[in-house]
C-alpha cells in the first residue's frame, strides 16, 4: 500500500488536555495513582498528623525564661493549664555556652571563633582550587561571620583588628594569586594550635621550623645522596630538632621576645569545640597517613602490602570505642615509662589512626579508578615513582575521592561523641550529663538532645549536601 503524505503546515504545540494539568493531575499522579498509593498516602498523612498532634503543644508551650526545670514546669502549667507539657529552652539559654565551648573561659571565646573562621580560609584553596569567584564569596562570608561573632564575643581590639586585617589580606591574595593561599593552609595547623591552647607564640613557630629544616635538608642533600636517603635524612634532622632543640629554642625566643596568649588547659575544652577539634585534626592528620597506607596497600612489595593491609583491617575491624579506651587505658603501657600527655592528644592520635584506615580504603578506591595509561604516561615521560604519585596520580585520585572523604569526615565527626566514654566533655553526653547533674535541671532530657542533635544535623547535612554538589561538579568537570 502506498501512502504518500507530505505536511505543508507544521502543527503548533498544544497545551495538554485539562485532565493532564494542574493540581488535580498532580495529586492523581503523585498521591493517588493506584489504590496502594492512596492507602500509603493516607497512612503517611495519619503518621504526620499523629506526630504533629503529639509534639506541637510541647513546642508551642516552649518556655524561654526560667531558672530551673521546676520553674519551667510551673510556667507551663500556669499558661497552658495543668497537665500540659512544654519545652524548657530556658536551659539552653543558660547553658548554651557549655554546649559550644565547654569550660573555655568566656573572655577567650574569640580564640576558638577565630580559629574556626580561619579554618575555612585555610580550606578555601582546597575546596575551590582556582575558582576566584567562589573563593571570594567564601572569604567574604567568613569576614562577615568573624566581624559579627568576634564583636559578640568581646574580642580585644588588637586581636579583632589583626584578625580582620588578616582575613581581608588573604581575600585580596586569593584574588591575585589563589595558589599562594595554600601557604596559609600549610601554617594553619600551628596557628590553630596556638590560638586554641595559647602559650608562647614561639612554640608553634619553632615546631613549624622543623618542617622547614626537613625541607632544607632534603633539598640540599637530594642532589648529593639521592631522593630517598635525603628524605630520610631530612626526617631524622626534623625529629632531632623537635626532640632536642624545640624546647630550648622556643624558650630562648620567648625569653628574648615574649609574646603569647593565655594558656588554656585541655580540660577546659568541651562541647562542639572539642568535637570539632578532634574531628578536624583527626581528618587532617589522617590524610597523609591514609595516603601512605593506600599506596602501601597498592604496592607490589609483599611486606609493605601485608603491613598496610594488617593495619587497615585491624583498625577497621574493631569498634572505635575500643580504640578510645586504648587511648585512655593502654597507650600509657606502650610508651616509655613516665611519658604522659594530654588525654585529648591521646584521643586525637587514636582517632587519627582510625580515620587513616578508613581514608586509606577511600583513597585506594580513587587510585583504582585511575586508568593504567596515566601511570604509563608518567613512566614514559621519565618521572620516578614519587614524582609520578605526587604530580599525576594522587591529585587525580584525591579529587575523585573528595566526596568519600567528606562522608568519612561526617562519620568521624559524629563519632567524636564517643569520647564521652573516656571522660571527655563531648556535647552530646558529656555536657548534657553535667547539665543534668545540676540540681536546677535534673530531669530534663528532650531539650539538650534536640539542641545538640539539631546542631549535628545542620553540620553533617550541610557537609553531605556539599559533597553531593562536588560529586556532580566533578562528574561534569572539563566536559
Amino acid at each position, binding site marked *: 500500500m502506498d501512502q504518500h503524505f507530505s505536511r505543508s503546515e507544521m502543527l503548533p504545540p498544544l497545551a495538554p488536555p485539562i485532565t493532564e494539568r494542574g493540581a488535580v493531575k498532580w495529586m492523581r499522579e503523585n498521591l493517588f*495513582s493506584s489504590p496502594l498509593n492512596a492507602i500509603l498516602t493516607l497512612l503517611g498523612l495519619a503518621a504526620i498528623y499523629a506526630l504533629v498532634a503529639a509534639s506541637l503543644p510541647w513546642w508551642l508551650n516552649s518556655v524561654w525564661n526560667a531558672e530551673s526545670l521546676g520553674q519551667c514546669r510551673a510556667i507551663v502549667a500556669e499558661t497552658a493549664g495543668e497537665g500540659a507539657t512544654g519545652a524548657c529552652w530556658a536551659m539552653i539559654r543558660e547553658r548554651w555556652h557549655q554546649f559550644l565551648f565547654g569550660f573555655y573561659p568566656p573572655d577567650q571565646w574569640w580564640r576558638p571563633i577565630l580559629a574556626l573562621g580561619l579554618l575555612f580560609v585555610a580550606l578555601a584553596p582546597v575546596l575551590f582550587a582556582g575558582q576566584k569567584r567562589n573563593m571570594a564569596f567564601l572569604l567574604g562570608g567568613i569576614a562577615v561571620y568573624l566581624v559579627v561573632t568576634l564583636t559578640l564575643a568581646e574580642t580585644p581590639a588588637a586581636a579583632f583588628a589583626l584578625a580582620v586585617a588578616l582575613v581581608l589580606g588573604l581575600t585580596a591574595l586569593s584574588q591575585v594569586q589563589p595558589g599562594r593561599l595554600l601557604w596559609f593552609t600549610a601554617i594553619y595547623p600551628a596557628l590553630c594550635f596556638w590560638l586554641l591552647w595559647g602559650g608562647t607564640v614561639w612554640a608553634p613557630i619553632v615546631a613549624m621550623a622543623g618542617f622547614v629544616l626537613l625541607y632544607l635538608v632534603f633539598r640540599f642533600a637530594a642532589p648529593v645522596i639521592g631522593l630517598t636517603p635525603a628524605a630520610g635524612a631530612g626526617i631524622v634532622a626534623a625529629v632531632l630538632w623537635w626532640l632536642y632543640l624545640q624546647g630550648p629554642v622556643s624558650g630562648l625566643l620567648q625569653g628574648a621576645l615574649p609574646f603569647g596568649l593565655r594558656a588554656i588547659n585541655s580540660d577546659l575544652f568541651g562541647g562542639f569545640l572539642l568535637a570539632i577539634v578532634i574531628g578536624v585534626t583527626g581528618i587532617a592528620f589522617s590524610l597523609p597517613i591514609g595516603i601512605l597506607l593506600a599506596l602501601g596497600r597498592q604496592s607490589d612489595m609483599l611486606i609493605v602490602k601485608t603491613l598496610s593491609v594488617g593495619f587497615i583491617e585491624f583498625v577497621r575491624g574493631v569498634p572505635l570505642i575500643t580504640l578510645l579506651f*586504648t587511648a585512655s*587505658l593502654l597507650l600509657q603501657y606502650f610508651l616509655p615509662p613516665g611519658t604522659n600527655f594530654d588525654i585529648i592528644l591521646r584521643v586525637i592520635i587514636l582517632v587519627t589512626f582510625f580515620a587513616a584506615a578508613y581514608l586509606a580504603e577511600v583513597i585506594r578506591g580513587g587510585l583504582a579508578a585511575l586508568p593504567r595509561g596515566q601511570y604509563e604516561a608518567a613512566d614514559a615521560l621519565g618521572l620516578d615513582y614519587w614524582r609520578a604519585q605526587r604530580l599525576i596520580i594522587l591529585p587525580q585520585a584525591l579529587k575523585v575521592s573528595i566526596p568519600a572523604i567528606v562522608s568519612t569526615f561526617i562519620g568521624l565527626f559524629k563519632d567524636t561523641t564517643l569520647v564521652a566514654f573516656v571522660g571527655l566533655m563531648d556535647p552530646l*553526653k558529656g555536657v548534657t550529663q553535667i547539665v543534668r547533674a545540676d540540681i536546677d535541671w535534673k530531669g530534663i532530657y528532650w531539650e539538650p538532645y534536640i539542641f545538640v542533635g539539631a546542631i549535628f544535623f545542620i553540620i553533617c*547535612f550541610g557537609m553531605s549536601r556539599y559533597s553531593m554538589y562536588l560529586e556532580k561538579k566533578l562528574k561534569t568537570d572539563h566536559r
Partner: protein
Amino acid sequence: MAMATDVPKDSFRLSMLVYDTRYRSYTIQIVVLLLFAMAVAWLLNNTAQNLAARGKEFNFAFLWQRAGYDIGQQLIPYTNDSTHFRALLVGLINTLVVAFWGCIFATILGVIVGVLRLSHNWLISRMMTVYVETFRNIPLLLWILLSYVILSETTPQPRDFRVTDEMAAAGEAPAASMIFFDTVAVTNRGTNVPAPLFERGLGSVDLGFVTLNLTLLAALAVVAGSFWVNHRLVAAARAQQEATGVRPATWWKSILILFGPFIALMAALGFHLEVPELKGFNFTGGILVAHSFTALLIALTLYTAAFIAEIVRAGIQAISRGQSEAAFALGLRPNRTTRLIILPQALRVIIPPLISQYLNLTKNTSLGIAVSYLDLRGTLGGISLNQTGRELECMLLMMLIYLTISLIISAAMNLYNRSVQLKAR
C-alpha cells in the same frame, strides 16, 4: 615453556641495592621490616617495663577467677559465682544477639524505606527522605540515649498494673494494662513477654562446657526438615513447569509443610506460654526483655536502616531503566520483572555495601555502654576489667574478639561476592 633466567652480566655492586629494579624492592622491604620490628620491639619493651613498674604481669589466669557480679541479661546460665570467662561469654552472646536482630530488622526496614523512597508517591518518598537524612546526620549515640529515655519515661511502672482491693471494689481499671490479650506487659523496666514452656520437654544433655537443650534441637530439626521438604516441593513444581510450561500452585502446600510439622511437634511436647504476672515488685514469669536491650536494638535498627535504605535505593537505581523496559516489552508483568530481572541484579550491587553496614552495626553494638547494656564491652571490657584491674589483657582480648567477628563477616562477604560476580569480557 620455562622462564629464562637472566644471569647478571656485571658483578654485584652495593649501589645496585638502590638502583637495580631487582634488588631495590628487597632493600625497601627489608628496611621497612626492620623499622617495623624495631617499633614492635620498642612497644613490647615499654609494655614490659610498664608492667614491671606497676607490679603486674601479663597473664589471663584472672579469667578463671570468680567474677562476683551479676548480669541482667543472660542467655546462658550465669551467676555471680561463675568465672570472668563465663561473664565474657555472656557478654559476647549479648553482643551477638543485638547484632543479629539489629541486622535483620535494619535490613527489613531499610529495604522498605529504600523502595518507598523510589515510590512515585510524592508524600511517601518525601517522608522517607526526611527519615533517612535525619538519621544519617545525627550521631547514633543520640538515638540510643533518646530511645532509652523515651522507653523508660513514657512507659508505666509495674505497680500501675496492680488492681488493689479497693479498686476492684470500686470497679476501677488500673492505670495500665497488658497488651496482646494480656500476655505482654511493657513497663518502664523492660518488656515482659510470655515464655514458651513444654510440659513434656525433652530435657537437656550436659556436654561439659555447653549444655544442649534437646527441645530446642528438636524444634530446629523439624524446622530444617520442613524447609528441606518445601525446597523439594518447589523444585518439583519447577520441574513440572519445565516439562509442561505450567507451574502448579504450591503456596498452600508450602504453608502446610512449613507449619504443620512444627505445630504438631509443639502439641506433642505440650507447648504452652507462661504469661508474665505481677507478683511482688515485678512481673514474674515470662521473659523480661530489658529496655537497655530494646533501646539499643531500636536505635541501631533505625540508624542502620537509614544507611541500608540508601544502599537499596542506589542498588535499584543502578539497574538501568532499560532492563525493566526490556522485560515489559517481552510481556513480563511488573512483579515478575522485579523478581526475575531487577532483584537478582540489584542484589549484586547491594550486598557488598550491605555487609559493610552489618559490620558497622556489629561494631556499634559496643555503644550499648551508653545504656549500660552488658555486652562484651560491658562485661569483659567493663566490669571484669574494673574489678580485676587487668586493662591490658581485657582490652587486647576484647579487640581480638571484635576483630575475629569482623573478619568472619567480611570473609563471608568476599566469598559471596566472588560467587555472584557478573561475567564480562
